[in-house]
């Protein structure tokens, strides 16, 4: 082959669009948010409670058959700062950065729930602090994740 002077690249932007089914359990959770409630699934066999609710129990691999409501407050078990820009998959526009998101253990749950925190400065947060869920105003809730605005510092846990 003759000497190549300028290697060539092409820009390629395949369009990937997905239309995910939330399924029965995911739909139940989103409907709960519309009502300002946090719903979890409970396993009859091993009594595990998981949020968001799902079919398969992570403890015994059985089907989780019961739905239970959790108090919308818990304990902040971990947090970090998101500073990398990305397009919000639900809105298609860039979410303002930086912000904090964390892992919250609801009272009565056996796992942790990840969500936005109202606090934007990680220096003002601590592991173990109580937080509470803040929802959109009832009239504005439509049954989507954004119905839950964030967790803010709260009392109890």
């Amino acid at each position: 082959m003759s000497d190549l002077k300028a290697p060539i690249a092409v820009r390629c932007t395949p369009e990937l669009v997905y239309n995910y089914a939330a399924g029965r359990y995911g739909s139940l959770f989103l409907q709960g948010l519309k009502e300002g409630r946090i719903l979890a699934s409970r396993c009859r066999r091993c009594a595990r409670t998981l949020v968001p609710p799902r079919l398969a129990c992570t403890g015994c691999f059985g089907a989780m058959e019961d739905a239970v409501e959790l108090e919308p407050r818990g304990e902040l078990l971990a947090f970090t700062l998101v500073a990398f820009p990305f397009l919000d998959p639900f809105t298609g526009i860039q979410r303002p950065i930086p912000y904090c998101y964390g892992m919250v253990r609801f009272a009565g749950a056996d796992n942790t729930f990840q969500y936005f925190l109202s606090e934007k400065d990680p220096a003002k947060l601590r592991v173990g602090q109580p937080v509470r869920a803040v929802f959109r105003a009832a009239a504005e809730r439509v049954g989507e994740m954004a119905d839950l605005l964030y967790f803010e510092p709260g009392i109890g846990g």
Partner: protein
Amino acid sequence: MQPVAILGAAQTRHVARRDDACYSELAFEVVAALLAETGFTHPRIDTVITVSSDFSDGRTISDMAVQDAVGAAGKSSSKVSMDGAFALAYAAARLTCGRYRTCLVVAHAKASEGRPREISRAAFDPFFERPLGPTDHVALGLQARRFLARGTVTREAVALAAARALAYANGNPNAHWRGALSSREIQLGPPVADPLHRFEVAPDSDGACALLLADLDTARAHAAARGVPVIRLDAVACATDRHGLGDRDLGLPGVLPQVARAAYAQAGITDPVREIDVAEVYDASAVQTLLWREGVGLPVDLLAGPAWNPSGGALCAQPGFATGLVRVAEVWRRLAAGEGRTGLAHGMTGFVGQAHCVGILRRA
């Protein structure tokens, strides 16, 4: 290969869209059905192979998202990101190495959640092919032209194969498409991939399938305890062809003849027309219904030799990478029900059959 056995098979109904279940719930559904059918419990599953596509699921490392649903947490698990039939080879290898006695294989797909044509386009070469607008369907059209140009079968025979598949699917409760259409009606239907029309190209389905494999000792004990026959997996062979559509003759069955010969040699089959009772192949088009017959060494006449895609085949349900595993499940079900002793199950991956896999199942 040391013989292994297939203890059970389960599949969902294959439909256009399952809104009631996310894809991990589809996987859970078939695993729960399989465990109920075989009487096995999760602690008795030694290793798990899941089959999924990151692009189809829209999830990087898509297998990790179904581990909870298939009960793999805490076990050795791995993934096949090809057609599910290829997972047979992986499962057999895991069992014959002697470390595991049982292996669960689970494949799921929700074609309705992604865009199958766009996803297939992304598999083509970005410089020389993608700008032309190729998809899996476009490749099927090119293959159909090459196949028909050989003159071994008529255009009518291709439409007849599609009509026959729909008729067979009337007896398959899991089929996505069923119907009673004549070959003429099919040829007058909407074109999908010139020269192929609707029902001559496989549908895009949501569905899942699971198999339980075990070593022969475990299988014999299971069969004796439950009064069911042992269905052995006597051979698995696979091979991959050249990638580019222009680097193969699409009108020929590619590497399938060599794969079939290897499987027949492993299983001791010398006369497939007489020795195979039932065959299920992954036919993404009605051309492939005929072409893969040639590939596995059977005469083109659909009435000669084994029952050929008696479920309706992939032409009546195509749940992504689960499609080939469904072929295995269908063959297993018929052998377990006493409809013959020897069966052939085929899967493929890559456009118009770049890679093929053939398994031979036998009722002991």
